[in-house]
């Protein structure tokens, strides 16, 4: 990593500028409410970085990132609920929503989440491990293209339905009303700002990891698999392993994003991780430029910002806009906004990313 940073001073400058905006400028100019919204969008942007890696660079159309986002979110939410219950009624108490649902005994699988260390380890390892297993199972058998897309989408559907059926996970309503985040009161504006800083830090870290992966030999291989999988195989590489790494990295990003999302927004429910929200994660990535590093981040920020500002004023108009954006951007501008400069310069890009991704 150092080698790359040393050889590219521009990268350092870019990270420094982003850090200055995120950590210095934004908290100064934005009100507490706006900063909370930005923190929420940053979480979506973290997911988008992973999708950019798996879809833009790896050609895997993952329509089910909501699963990993949801896993991270629910794991974190379970810990927060346990901590709240312990704070109110002593260790091992039953969280409040279970009391309302008539569950008196704490389900066994909840118990370990009283431990913060266990929770964080689970957030990092569980979704990633699941993605590795699923990725190997699917990619080793060379299930790809539309088949993979459909499977990932079905996974999101099954996961949401599974959660709705689990009363011990809040069912349809999900988990909400968290008071403390690892001992910090969530009502305190200072702590809310701290959560924003955490989200910003995670985003920068995710971008740095994605950058390193893109510039490494692995990144070249991933691109090669996207553009000509058979040739990579003939050269003696196992394309399934290469794809699985990108898929699992995307899953890890989504999971951490979900875990940070929960204390910021204060609720996680099956409705925000099902099939439609999972595809919505892709919209920003497509608009920003799926194969670029920062396109997905900026695209996601723009889309969710637009959603928040427009959907209240024009609820039905926003849905039309979303649909039209999908149609227009992907049909006419598959490289996203990032490709406009290239088009403007009339540099014929010989291998448009979308053409290859297909």
């Amino acid at each position, binding site marked *: 990593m150092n080698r790359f940073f040393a050889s590219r001073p521009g990268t350092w400058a870019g990270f420094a500028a982003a850090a200055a905006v995120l950590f210095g400028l934004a908290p100064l100019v934005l009100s507490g409410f706006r900063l909370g919204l930005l923190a929420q969008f940053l979480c979506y942007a973290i997911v988008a970085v992973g999708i950019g890696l798996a879809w833009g660079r790896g*050609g895997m*159309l993952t329509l089910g990132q909501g699963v990993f986002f949801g896993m991270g979110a629910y794991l974190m939410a379970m810990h927060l609920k346990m901590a709240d219950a312990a704070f109110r009624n002593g260790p091992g108490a039953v969280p409040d929503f279970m009391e309302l649902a008539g569950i008196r005994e704490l389900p066994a699988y909840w118990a370990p989440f009283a431990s913060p260390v266990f929770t964080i380890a689970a957030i990092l390892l569980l979704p990633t491990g699941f993605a590795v297993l*699923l990725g190997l*199972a*699917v990619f080793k*058998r*060379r*299930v790809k*293209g*539309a*088949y993979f*897309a*459909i*499977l990932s*989408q*079905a*996974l999101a*559907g*099954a*996961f949401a*339905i*599974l959660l*709705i*059926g*689990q009363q011990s996970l809040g069912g349809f309503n999900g988990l909400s009303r968290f008071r403390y985040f690892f001992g910090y009161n969530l009502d305190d504006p200072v702590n809310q700002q701290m959560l924003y800083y955490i989200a910003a830090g995670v985003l920068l870290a995710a971008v740095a990891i994605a950058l390193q992966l893109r510039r490494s030999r692995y990144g070249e291989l991933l691109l090669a698999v996207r553009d000509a999988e*058979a040739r990579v195989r003939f050269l003696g590489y196992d394309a399934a392993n290469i794809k699985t790494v990108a898929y699992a990295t995307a899953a890890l990003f989504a999971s951490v994003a979900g875990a940070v999302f929960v204390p910021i927004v204060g609720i996680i429910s099956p409705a925000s991780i099902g*099939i*439609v929200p999972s*595809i919505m994660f*892709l919209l920003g990535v*497509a608009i920003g430029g799926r194969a670029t590093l920062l396109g997905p981040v900026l695209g996601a920020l723009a889309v969710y910002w637009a959603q928040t500002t427009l959907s209240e004023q024009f609820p*039905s108009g926003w*849905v*039309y806009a*979303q*649909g*039209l*954006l*999908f*149609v227009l951007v*992907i*049909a006419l501008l*598959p490289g996203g906004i990032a490709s406009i400069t290239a088009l403007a310069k009339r540099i014929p890009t010989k291998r448009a990313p*979308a*053409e290859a*991704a*297909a």
Partner: protein
Amino acid sequence: MDLLVGQLFTGLSTGSILLLAALGLSLTFGQMGVINMAHGEFIMAGCYTAYVVQQIAGDAGVSLLIALPLGFAVGGAMGLVLEALLIRHLYHRPLDTLLVTFGVGLILQQVARDVFGAPAVNVSVPPALRGGVDLLGVTVPKTRLFIMGLAIVAVTAVALVLRFTPAGRRIRAVVGNRDLAETAGISSRAVDAGTFFIGSGLAGVAGVALTLIGSTSPTTGQSYLVDAFLVVVAGGLGRIKGAVVAAVALGATQAVFETYSTASLAKVGVFIVIVVFLQLRPQGLFTLRTRSLA
């Protein structure tokens, strides 16, 4: 025994619904390798066609008879427009087509929400199809039997058209080898449009039939779409036979899981079964033998 027959029937019934939803999808997917996410909205359009026809015609039996062909026409027309405006131009980018058609689906859903309202509407069932029939000691709702019959008719019709008509022959030629078919003088563009018309029309018919067993809302199609996709994936590309077997098998699997657990666990069970199944046959049940690398 009763339980077994009951299960068998539930499986067949679920399977025939899946089949109706998936038949058109399998046709268009097999034809162009294109996943049409707006297929669910074509189903929804069929549902609302049945609703509108009943509002105008009044009588439930007559309106069903009008709605079935009209649903085919409505779905087919929407498919034609979609194919001509978008899908034709994205033929070489199948994954992008998936997202573009998802966008189209979003728009169509919102149109339905603005025209008919978000709450679900109901279509009343013709008197002849109300109640149940005793079959081998199990009471079977007549509507379910009707849908099974409709699925059989639809599959037979599609199979006969593909097998014996000149148009069907052209479709099979293009599915088998597009370039060779074009060399032989077949306009693959016209065939694509025709296939899309039939496939989307079948979605409309499925929609009309679904109003018999459930209410209609703007998101009706979406709820059937994922299962229909799974049928196509498990059945194999462009094979009607595959779609039939996969639909019945998935229906049965879901019914069995539901007996021993809950409906939500059944969905997860079906997903696991499909992932395991794809370990054995990555290209689905029945595949066209090709020598291509992809």
